[in-house]
């Protein structure tokens, strides 16, 4: 079982993830239409590029935009969740040992204690996001079961990984569950809203180009996100 989930299944999951994301990227860009979107993307590409980069960068900085500053607590939860979500799996020691075994290279790694803390923070932040969906009427009204499913898919690798790492009595079970959860997440990304992982950059770039080319970017200093 272990050999199967970490061998062929992992390969398939990664393949689906990469091919899926490339497909989504191409499909998004090809579906842009200068006349329907009313943005002269190619005619003023340099203004567009500037607008796109500003639109992405400001939003990647914690408290970097009016909106992030307005929602102070949520912004903290949001960045904690996402930083942990991205950093932990990529720079985890265990993952990099596997990487070295399979592909012959590895990335710098996080100290175990840091990775462990990040994992706990992701789980706590995730729980806050769930509670927020229940508590706030303006979030509750737009929340669907699908949103919880997405959160569950993203949190599952962390919960199972945490249990496995701390050698819960049924270590083998949790380890396999962890690998499966990770694979489910990888496969889910291209097919679900988790595709925002890449589409975030694309939609932000698009609106950035809109503001950079058409809505004032060629006149003023550029929009104060």
């Amino acid at each position, binding site marked *: 079982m272990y050999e199967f989930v970490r061998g062929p299944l992992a390969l398939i999951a990664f393949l689906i993830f990469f091919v899926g994301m490339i497909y989504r990227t191409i499909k998004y860009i090809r579906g842009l239409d200068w006349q329907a979107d009313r943005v*002269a993307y190619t005619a003023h590409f340099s203004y567009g590029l500037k607008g796109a980069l500003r639109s992405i960068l400001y939003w990647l900085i914690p408290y970097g935009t009016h*909106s992030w500053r307005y929602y102070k607590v949520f912004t903290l939860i949001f960045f904690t969740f996402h930083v942990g979500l991205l950093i932990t799996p990529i720079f985890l020691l265990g993952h990099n040992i596997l990487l070295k075994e399979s592909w012959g290279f590895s990335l710098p790694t996080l100290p175990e204690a840091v990775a462990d803390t990040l994992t706990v923070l992701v789980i706590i932040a995730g729980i806050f996001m769930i509670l927020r969906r229940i508590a706030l009427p303006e979030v509750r009204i737009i929340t669907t079961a699908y949103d919880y499913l997405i959160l569950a898919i993203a949190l599952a690798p962390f919960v199972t990984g945490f249990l496995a790492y701390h050698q819960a009595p049924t270590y083998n079970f949790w380890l396999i569950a962890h690998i499966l959860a990770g694979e489910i997440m990888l496969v889910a990304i291209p097919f679900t809203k988790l595709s925002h992982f890449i589409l975030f950059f694309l939609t932000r770039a698009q609106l950035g180009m809109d503001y950079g080319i058409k809505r004032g970017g060629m006149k003023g200093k550029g929009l104060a996100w």
Partner: protein
Amino acid sequence: MPEGKLCNKQTVDTKELLSALLNDKSGKQYYEEMNHLDVDSKALWGLIQKSCKSRLRTWLEICAHCGMCADSCFYYLANNRDPRQVPSYKIQSTLGELIRRKGNVDNAFMQMCMDTAYSKCSCCTRCGLYCPFGIDMGIMFGYLRGLLFSQGFTPWEMKIGTGMHRIYRAQMDVTTEDWVETCEWMVEEYEDDWPKLTIPIDEKNADIMYTVNAREPKHYPDDLAEAAVLFHIAGEKWTVPSEGWEETSLAMFAGDWAACKMQVEHVYAAMDRLKPKRMVVTECGHAYRATVIEGPYWAGLKSGQPPVESIHYVEWVAEALRTGKLKIDPAKKIKEPVTYQDSCNYIRNAGLGDIAREIMSYIAEDFREMSPCREHNFCCGGGGGLNGIGRYRQQRNIGLQVKRDQILATGAKMVIAPCHNCWDAIRDMEEIYHIGIKWSFLKPLLLNMVIVPDDLKPKEE
């Protein structure tokens, strides 16, 4: 009854139809007929498949349902944080649902969409600045209005407006003769005080081609005269076209994209005919947005720019003050506290925030910013055509409260509102809420403040 006589899927292209609509007081019969209008689901779905591309589809799909757009919407704030006013909810329950059902929706659903798209969204596009994915509900509601229009679900006044544009190439029934006569009449009225004042019509190769909002010739001809006097003082070589002088576009609010195209092409044809160096648009926000910002796309101009450089009136004013073409008498600067209504259409959607501040620095001694301001301003409450739609008067009046409170918080005695829609909304706000505020366009204020060169003054007897 699948199609009404007045309320139907046809566009209004004849004077007979237009006057039939106008004679239907407050659209009584029109809205009654709307209750029986059939939805052509096949055509609707066909249109969606053709026109709803990756930008909109992705926005609808990846919305994280995080609610960060909630507080950005003035309707949400004005309606006691009613969750049904959250921008994401509003668009998901209308356009989102329409697409999920592949256009298989009934009359009641379409009317709900219409009510939402017009009375719960002014297309101010503020929410797009607050969404981490840059999801812009204002743009999507504009798109939805177009879908609704194609099926005949459009407020009565908007349907009339599109007819006006289609028939008169203006939002009101102002003909070429009416327009030219108004220009001549205004010169006669003002030339005693301003000898040699002219409103040059159809002059070729002028430095400026000036274009207006049809309300000016129709209801406020003095605005046109004031513009003429200011150009006269500034020594501009300017002209107005006899045809193609109308900048506004109720068709844009209604989503009648074919009429939008006809309207802007009429203006662009005047540019081609008269070959001015630049065009200046009067103090109107949506007019500028329609003809200068969005118009080139309707007309299929790949550069995304109008045929000649086009600027908003505030840009001309700032330039004239900067270069000294207009000089302000320091003693006459505005002393009382004033604030500025940032129009969504030319500030957020065209980047003229700094220009507005520059003007204020020349003319006001005690300028107070609203909070928030500039690109982050709230809509006045009357945008997206709402000022003109009787059916949604109540909702509009509630929405005005946000701007009212913003103005009150500045302590200003006057609001400078160089946008017809904003100006109207603030006038109505005063009528309803009596906050003791004055409101004004720039032109009359400037006329009171500029230094008039001696040679332009009337000769003393």
